[in-house]
């Protein structure tokens, strides 16, 4: 668990971070979202003491981090940099092995863990002997991720981990990332200025502006209960797409027509609308079989889906 208590940081006259407090629960992913320069990176770097706050306190797993040796602290926290920051003079294998070597892991252990990770991150084996400049941007970002994950730290800090990528590559990496079993066991603070990405990956989102927290809550809360104009406007341009993502079939269950009994492969009801639409579009199916938690199942067509979603929308309280 990570807790920030009234953290502030000034650079000269710039108030980069202004009395920020939040908690990240065990195994939760908190996304810091906001425009460029709003203090996201600064906030993140204070958690592993790359930057020391002017005032306030940061507690990780019950201990105040200022009482810990910064080097030791950092060895226990995975960090993915905004600029990737691979060592140009190390091969990919060596880059991944930096922290394990600092922790004096045995060679065999490093090797097998590296193999495991590049498999999970879909990197070809032959990159291990290459140098960073020989890799594509997307591959480099995966290596950056592997480097942060290799020692399996309980806490992971990620600063725009997919920032350097084009949209297509980004969304495919995001998917892989979301599917990674390892990450589900970690406490993660991630920075992005991309709203879609935040909604895709966050358990909770912390929306920031000019060094302050505007709103902190689940994607659904941000979308349906924005605290002020800034929060509303921040999401306005992509509202529909986001809504497709935060609403799942369970939410609109009551608006779907009664089910007919049918056999075949059923999808879970926590599928969000966006995913359901993609499935319907990309396959030749007309209907999708969904089974809810209570073993009830329904089939839906594209039209039924949009209709149900619209009815759900109108049923929501309007601010």
């Amino acid at each position: 668990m990570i807790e920030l208590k009234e953290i502030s940081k000034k650079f000269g006259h710039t108030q980069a971070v202004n009395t920020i407090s939040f908690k990240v629960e065990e195994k939760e992913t908190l996304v810091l979202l906001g425009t460029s320069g709003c203090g996201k990176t600064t906030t993140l770097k204070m958690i592993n003491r790359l930057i020391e706050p002017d005032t306030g306190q940061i507690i990780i797993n019950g201990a105040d981090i200022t009482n810990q040796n910064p080097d030791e602290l950092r060895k226990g926290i995975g960090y993915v940099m905004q600029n990737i920051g691979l060592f140009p003079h190390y091969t990919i294998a060596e880059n991944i092995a930096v922290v394990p070597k600092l922790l004096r892991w045995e060679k065999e252990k490093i090797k097998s863990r590296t193999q495991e990770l590049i498999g999970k991150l879909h990197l070809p084996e032959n990159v291990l002997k290459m140098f960073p400049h020989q890799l594509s941007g997307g591959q480099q970002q995966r290596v950056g991720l592997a480097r942060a994950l290799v020692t399996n730290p309980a806490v992971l800090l990620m600063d725009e981990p997919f920032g350097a990528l084009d949209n297509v590559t980004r969304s495919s990496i995001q998917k892989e990332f979301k599917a990674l079993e390892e990450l589900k066991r970690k406490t993660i603070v991630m920075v992005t200025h991309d709203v879609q990405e935040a909604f895709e990956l966050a358990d909770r989102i912390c929306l920031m502006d000019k060094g302050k927290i505007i709103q902190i809550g689940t994607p659904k809360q941000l979308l349906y209960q924005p605290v002020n104009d800034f929060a509303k406007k921040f999401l306005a341009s992509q509202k529909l797409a986001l809504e497709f993502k935060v609403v799942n079939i369970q939410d609109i269950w009551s608006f779907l027509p009664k089910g007919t009994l049918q056999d075949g492969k059923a999808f879970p009801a926590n599928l969000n609308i966006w995913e359901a639409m993609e499935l319907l579009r990309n396959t030749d199916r007309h209907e999708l079989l969904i089974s809810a938690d209570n073993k009830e199942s329904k089939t839906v067509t594209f039209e039924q889906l949009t209709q149900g979603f619209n009815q759900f929308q109108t049923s929501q309280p309007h601010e």
Partner: protein
Amino acid sequence: MNEQQQTLWQFMQGQSDKLLNQTLQHVGLTFISLLLAIAIGLPLGILIARKRKLSGTVLGIAGVLQTIPSIALLGFMIPVLGIGAKPAIVALLIYALLPIIRNTYTGIIGIDQHIKEAARAMGMSRSQILLKVELPLAMPVILAGIRTATVINVGVATLASFIAAGGLGEFIFGGISLNNTNMILAGAIPAALLAIILDALLSLIQKMDFKKLRRALYVFPVVILILGGFYALPSAYGSTLTAGFTPEFMGRQDGDLGLRSVYGLKIHTIVISDAVMYKAAYAKELDVISGYSTDGRLKAFDLKILKDDKNIFPPYYAAPIVRNEALKQFPQLEETLNLLADKITDAAMTDLNYKTDYLHQSPERVAKDFLISIGLYKAPKNGHNGTIRIGSKIFGEQYILAEMYSMLIKGYTDYDVSTKTGLGGTKICFDALTNNQIDFYPEYTGTGLLVLLQPDAKVAKEMAHDKEKTYNYVSAEFEKKFKIKWLKPIGFNNSYALMMRRKQSKDLNVNTITDLKNYLDKN
């Protein structure tokens, strides 16, 4: 040309022992000092990259040190470190320092900030960041600095011979003094090759990719150490006294060669430049030196001339030598220069030299005072009827003479004067004269005979000890060969001489060169 190459090759073969030895010394000097410069420069560079406020000061000091002329630097060091290897290595080290410090500094601060941050973020300590990230990434730049320093060092190491530290400079400067082109080339060519080869090797290392570079970096210090080890300190066989001879003296029949063959003198000898030789004798670094009989430093450092009881040092009467064309072009020139004929005795010349070398009066003032004292001085007429170019070699006496001639010409004629003083050794000065770069300079009969004409041994022997014969012979030969005229001698005889500290000479009861030989044989 072909013949020239042939004889150069023969010279190198004949002197191959010396050549090899000098080359090894040269490499050794270069690399010992390089190693020390790296040992000092690298940490300093790292320090100022950490504490940037210091960078201005440190780079400034290293920069200023580098601008000190090499000979001056070597001279400064004699009182502190004596002569030989130590001061030479320190001087070379000082020259190598700036490129190494500067490149270490720029190499480290030039590393991408994000990479250093990544290293910190992964929990590397400061020293781990330095060793695993900063130094490896800065290495190409640091190596470029080392490369520059190496090339500088190969060049400056030629000057090490001035303070008896050996190296290829012994041939180069000996050759210049002796008017021996083959000897110059035998030193200069290997020195140039050395610079080119080392430069190429280091550029190879510099261009290696990171993987190979890492391996090369383990080998590099070992290689430097081994090369540095070539410099077995040059002082092998012992005699109780140590002599310091100039490169010129070493190679001359009327120098070291004569001392060996005529007197049978066997003394531990090191090669040293004239500029620092007297000081080294005074500082008891040396016991016997080869000097000039009218040198002011004789008086300044209280040295005593050992009598040349077997007459191996021929007379060196000074006289201006002038191109015939210049005499024709400037009709009043000869008469004016001859005003000084027979005017300066040995004692007077020693005294004049003492005033410049030891009392640090300017040659101009000394010249003027003297001309006034003998009633020859006249205020300049500021004429513009053509310009006469006066040359002089690079030592005090010649500066004074050049000043006197300049004053006489300005006072007695309507000619203007330009002086080109400090023209290195005999060869440089004489070449300037024959190539119409200067119109005249003061030369010595002995030098004219033995260095410039180089007659066969029989002729030389016959002449060498007779003032008149020598003068007549060189006059006739120069006229014939070079169209150059010897005017009337100035009076003093600045011959070679062996000298010792007065006190030591008294203590050991050594007054003549034969005494010296006997003393050495007994001890």
